[in-house]
């Protein structure tokens, strides 16, 4: 566990996507480092994601709106 990546963008699934807007408010914006901290016990859902100094529980459908680029170098 503890996969790190960098946010590339948050994609809206439709017009006025409140969930995507909220993700941006949480700090999911381009260039921000994110880390996958834990996964839920059933179906590995929800995901616990660290963004900035805060941990958020996101369902997979929510997290799927965030495109990230995986870190290549240590």
């Amino acid at each position, binding site marked *: 566990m503890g996969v790190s990546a960098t946010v590339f963008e948050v994609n809206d699934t439709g017009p006025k996507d409140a969930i995507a807007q909220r993700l*941006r408010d949480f*700090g999911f914006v381009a260039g921000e480092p994110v880390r996958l901290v834990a996964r*839920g*016990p059933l179906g590995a859902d929800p995901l*616990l994601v660290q963004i900035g100094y*805060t941990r958020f529980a996101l369902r997979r459908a929510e997290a799927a709106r965030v495109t990230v680029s995986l870190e290549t170098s240590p």
Partner: protein
Amino acid sequence: MNGTAATLRIALVGNPNCGKTALFNLLTGTRQKVANYAGVTIERKEGHYLAPSGRNVRVLDLPGAYSLAANSPDEAITRDVVTGRYPGEAAPDLIVCVADATNLRLHLRFVLEIARLGRPMLLALNMMDAAKRRGIHIDVAALAARLGMPVVETIAVKRGGAAGLIAQIDAFEPLAALGAVVAGGNVHIPQAPSAPDLHAQVRVMLAETVTMPRRTAAIDDTLDRIVLHPVFGLAILAAIMFLIFQAVFSWATPLHDGIDAGIQAAGAWLGSALPDGALRSLLVDGVFAGLGTVLAFLPQILILFLFIFVLEESGYLPRAAFLLDRMMLAAGLTGRSFIPLLSSFACAIPGIMATRSIPDPRDRLTTILIAPLMTCSARLPVYALLIAAFVPQRTVAGIFNLQGVVLFTLYLAGIVSALLVAWTIKRLRRDKSEHALMMELPSYRVPHPRDIAIGLYERGMIFIQRVGGIILALTVLLWFLSSFPAPPVGASEPAIHYSLAGMIGKALHVVFAPIGFNWQICIALVPGLAAREVAVSSLATVYALGGNEDGLQAIVAAQWSLATALSLLAWYVFAPMCISTLATVKRETRSWRNVVVLAGYLFGLAYFASLATYQIAKALGA
């Protein structure tokens, strides 16, 4: 208008869980609910204090919000108050933004969003104690210069921890900020800046003013690795829940028995001291037998609340919600429903109100509709009485108290039915679009024993006041109904058979006979609608008036069949025997339809469950 001119109106605004309410309590000397998860405050709360200058300051505590683009009913309140659109409430003279100093990356973004309103404001950097412990250093002067507003450090959980804030608020002169104030008028929300803009500003500010050794607290990372582990995590959750039920029984029993014996002895003494007559009967059969039986459950209730308080302050509750989210989703709920539902174990009313922090209206309604199935503390006396009377005090499997196991099963019955009901609602619903979770997990905190002691004292007083207030009134009323009209001359049975209550009980008995209730239970059900515990005090009164000398538990054990006891337990798992809960559902959902649906389905389930329980138990020879 001098009085109002001298009053300064401030509002505490900020992200969820940054300590606004703790600050509010420190400033105003009140005790609003503080707990370690996002979404504790769901209403606008008002308080006052006298500033050192002699000026009266009116403080508003607001629900936490992540953004002015509100996502839930509680966030909408905050948005409306700070922008002056809240009905009957002009925009505050001064906005006191509160931010958690250990979580500035997120919290400063909201501060900047508020700053765009162009209102007079200042920033309180709260949790400075936690920030220091983590080695976070903040250049406050530089931050204030960058933000263009005063910044003060606070520690909301320490006496005197808001001294700097009080001084800074007192230094505020409304006239100096005239340009920004349109007295009483609406504030216009500036075109929402694109999120990356504000985040970019925050990033620059943090780089210039804050140094922190690491982004998270090391202890949080360690604990989360264990507590959120797919296997250990669920095991820990189950163990905690089970411990609570064991404790409620085994720890409380000696205390309970002590109180019960004391009250019975006092009643007996009073009975022998008073002359025979109506007054003696009212005091001995009504007040002592009735109230005493309920009062003895104080230890159980305090132990339950002790666990709830510790869980609330530790930060564990959102973790439990995380672990259970997927299962709750399958049942048509969300992990966010977990906290309102857990609160409903204390009482469904605050539980139903806490659903305001659930953003999705469908999830919220489902949670409200199943909250009454969580066994509230007022049902505890009923369960405890019947368990003590019918289940032997025995140890099973080496460590478990059998009575605790039965209690756990009853709670579980409520939970399982709640999940089934939620699942049914989900199947019936046509709108199947996505539901959101998006829940913040706070830092762990060690609960302060002093706060918990005060909280328990308050809960204890609430319970005692309930006993001395509504329960006393109903008990006395029941005594009257059970004593008059007086029996005809030459009557063979005790007076209660000929009384008004006796007649009501026997009329209801027609409906409840198939589920095994005797007419005494039927009488007790009626006042039990106003407060569930009253069912116990009413039974005690009814039997005492019926000429029984023993304590209620002994009477029940001797006179009821096991099938009747099981049927009454099943009834209490479901029955909507609480008018205040129904009134709360009406207020929270603004719909009578929901109230009718709720009461209807609960009564239906209760009658069906009791019928099945009674008939099966009887067939098995119980």
